[in-house]
């Protein structure tokens, strides 16, 4: 069984607690562990904070797909080249970049094309799946 939850939030750090609560509730339903839920939080916070920092907005839409074994998040629409660049592989020695963080905490991070020259970021958190 797959449920879809759509959440539209203002592009602001103030929206993060709401996003966390929704994600947490959804993730708890599919029995993700506390560590896995926290990973999910980190991924969303880092992505949205980076987007906010680059002036993306004024709203972010999160489409949360709930499956039996985990959660998939589809966030967007984003427009800036800067965010897309940060989501590409981090350069060696560049420290802890957005891509490294995302790959460490969630699975299958992808940048997908969206209408109007925009793109969306999709990632998943599966129960019991290891991360990079």
């Amino acid at each position, binding site marked *: 069984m797959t449920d879809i939850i759509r959440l539209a939030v203002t592009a602001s750090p103030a929206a993060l607690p709401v996003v966390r*609560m929704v994600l947490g509730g959804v993730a708890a339903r599919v*029995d993700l562990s*506390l560590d896995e839920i926290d990973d999910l939080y980190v991924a969303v*916070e880092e992505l949205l904070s980076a987007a906010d920092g680059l002036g993306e907005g004024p709203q972010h839409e999160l489409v949360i797909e709930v499956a039996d074994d985990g959660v998939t998040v589809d966030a967007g629409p984003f427009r800036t080249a800067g965010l897309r660049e940060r989501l590409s592989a981090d350069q060696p020695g560049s*420290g*802890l970049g957005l891509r490294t963080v995302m790959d460490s905490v969630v699975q299958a991070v992808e940048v997908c094309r969206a209408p109007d020259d925009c793109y969306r970021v999709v990632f998943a958190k599966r129960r019991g799946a*290891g991360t*990079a």
Partner: protein
Amino acid sequence: MREMPVNDTYDDDGDDLTRVDADERSPGDELFDDAEREPESEEPDDEAEADADDGDDEVERVPVAAGRGKDESEKLDQYLLRRYHLHGDRRARDQLITMYLPLVRSLARRYSSRGEHFDDLVQVGSIGLIKAIDRFDLSRGVELTTYATPNIIGEIKRYFRDKGWSVRVPRGLQELNIRLNKVIDELVPKLQRSPTINEIAEAAGATPEEVLEALETSQAYNSVSLQASPNGEGDDETGLIDYMGTEEEAYDTMEDRTMLAPGFAKLDARERYILHLRFFEGLTQSQIAARVGISQMHVSRLIRRALEKLRANIGEGAL
């Protein structure tokens, strides 16, 4: 010359007298090292000599005698308290502080499962001890232990209440958050994995929604930086992080890979170490908690805070 023990003190239960070895000193004890090196009081000697009943020897010259009973301990307390309060003898005060640090540690340990580092609580409790010694009223005829214990506990509780929460969080949620900390720490070794929200809720006697809400409140929780120097002064290069049991080899590797990266220099050593474990070694939060010796919730907060700092420090275009 009267023989007075100087290093005998209460054990961790606060009721028996035992000797405290130098090896057993906790990091928090360093708080008092400077005070112990203070120059001697310039109080006129004639005033000290006038109080013959209290002994006219300097405290530091009083020989050590082991195996002292409770009555003798009380006498020593009274002797030192009078030296301090009547004659301003700072060394007597310092000795009392040293003697009662195990009591502070014992009381701090009771609260160490609530998400704060034990050494932080010892420091806070020590402030309560110092206040108790400074405010002790000789005329009331009570024992110092009786007076100091509620002062120490009060200071620790005040720390949790006033400094722990950066935004207003309902008391019920604060309490549940504290309870969850303990529940999670119990569940991880029992299950040999990170627990689910439903498991935590069942163990805590709460609903999953309440658990999520209480966990969310932990983001509003501030903990004292362990990078802060033990004596609370900014000029001390040694932070409490230096007392943590870390693996030097792993630490060196972490330094090689990330120390030169933008933004990392602004993180404290523990933050760098925890980020390294999570993002370069691939440890889970629970595994990091076990390795570093703090709670999973604390690891969660530290990771998020360190990432926030990184974002702020690196600025646009670097992360």
